[in-house]
């Protein structure tokens, strides 16, 4: 049964998916050690969504300690933010664009230390895979 993107149910399912992923556990095992590893994913308006959605993942040492949609485009607990229009996120989730390519070409905007983020490209790719494999109902245009 697909879960609607943007709901607390979806965020919870994602948290479970991340914590069940040995790929993420290995790739992210030192993520957040000595720095704030919480990432705010900003799904900005575009395509099927008229209003932005903002997902905060609390990530530390290969685990997801919490996932929630937050009301605003920034959050005091965020260590990093990744911002892109919704259609680009869909391209990434569908495998048409690599997240690293989006970051490196500037199509996705990064707040936080880009070099730290890129050092853990494998962990973030694994996160993307966790999202992509969730049975999700995305808003339709």
């Amino acid at each position, binding site marked *: 049964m697909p879960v609607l993107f943007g709901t607390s149910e979806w965020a919870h399912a994602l948290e479970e998916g991340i914590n069940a992923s040995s*790929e993420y556990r290995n790739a992210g095992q030192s993520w957040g050690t000595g720095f704030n590893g919480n990432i705010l994913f900003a799904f900005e308006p575009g395509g099927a969504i008229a209003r932005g959605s903002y997902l905060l993942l609390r990530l530390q040492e290969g685990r997801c300690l919490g996932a929630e949609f937050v009301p605003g485009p920034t959050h005091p607990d965020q260590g990093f933010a990744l911002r892109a229009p919704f259609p680009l996120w869909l391209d990434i989730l569908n495998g048409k664009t690599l997240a690293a390519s989006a970051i490196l070409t500037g199509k996705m905007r990064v707040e936080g230390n880009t070099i730290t983020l890129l050092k853990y490209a494998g962990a973030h790719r694994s996160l993307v895979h966790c999202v992509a494999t969730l049975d999700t109902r995305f808003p339709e245009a």
Partner: protein
Amino acid sequence: MDRLYTLLQNRIEGVVSTPDQYHAGLLSNFGNLFHATPRLVVSPLTARDVAATVTFAREHGLTVSTRGAAHSQSRVAISDGGILLSMSSMRRILSVDASAPSVDVEAGVVWRDLVRHLAPRNLAPPVLTNNLSVTVGGTLAIAGIGVSSFKYGTQGDNVRELEVVAGTGERLVCDRKKHADLFWGSLAGLGQAGIITRARLDLRATKPMTRTYYLLYRDLRGFLHDAKLAMERGRWDHLESWASPSPQGTKPVAGRRQVFARWFYPFHLTVEFDPGHPPDDEELLRGLDPFERLYVDDLPTVDFFERMIPVFDLWKQGGTWKHIHAWIETVLPWEHAVDCIESVLPDLPPSILVGGHVLLWPARGTTSKVPFFMRPPGEDLIGFGVLPAIPARFWERARPMLENLSRMTELMGGKRYLSGYLDWTEDRWKNHFGDQWGPFTALKHKYDPHSILNPGFVPFPAAPADVRRVPGESVPAAD
């Protein structure tokens, strides 16, 4: 028959070929990524032939692309509808001066031939590329780096004099004082201002034997620590290193299982010595802390210079020489070396390196004075080269990974070595050259005002109209 064929052939001593005559190998380069068909191929015999060809091209609205051994991998050493100058026909070693050691060579001389020519006199160019089957003119136009660059800089730093045919068709002899802008601008200048036809190269005295210590490191930081120490001590003649994968099975990567590797770092340190006076091993290696000392190899120095030839022969025999080569070689600032290399290697499938390798070369920024050889600021630098051989059917899968690798090294302050694979927009060229972009563009406009030379690689802005005129052309009357 192309009407221009006879016209050009009548002007030069060398050979002009048309598409039905020249070898199909001239349609691409070592990269096997870009293909183009030249209208004419010229194998010049003299600098006068080169000048006549450039003048002819200007008169007939053609471009001229230069080709040495064509080891480059981008839109270099190929021509799309223009004239391809195959410089390998100019391969004479002209004279050796043993007193103030130097040698005069034509641009098409292959470094291996020069090394063998000089070996009986115990002389050698201070810097030699790993692949010796490339030409003097070709590597000087890129910069030319090798395992002694940490001491002597680039091959371009060891040039006394050049003869260059500019895009205007003029033959100019230049050095650090005479036409100095063209001299420096021809070194690592990508053949944009002029075509090197002759070079006077510095030589150094060599000792007849080399001893190489094969050390192995199991972590990057340990290797870098010792690489820096080795450079600082000044006892070593050659330093060479790699990242070497040890496959460990498969792991999921975005849900698909992929072979992954534990990476190790071989470090080869070499000293030259006279027979009967072998080096003191313990003294040389004191302070270095490898995971393992694997092997100590004594070789005649000329064999050391040629050490990669059996490796390249293996790659040729295995068929990988004909694969796509999209090499990403970058000079990194020391402070970002670990971040950069450790973010790249975990994702690098070991199989991509069949017929290739990952190079690391310790370097020092102040050893080079060549202005267009771009490198990060600072004294300690590390070269990082991912040199894959990719079967054509895997190219589309590998390309985004390699392009990301290039962008990431640039983001971390690295400067690409320009013989490899790159397909840049103007913004990235400007970013690469930084404050040298203006001088590079000005040099192009001065010496190649009609943009005849080596088009399709660097996207220069067009020269201003008043610069595009050449001596003898009439100036249009003002309205």
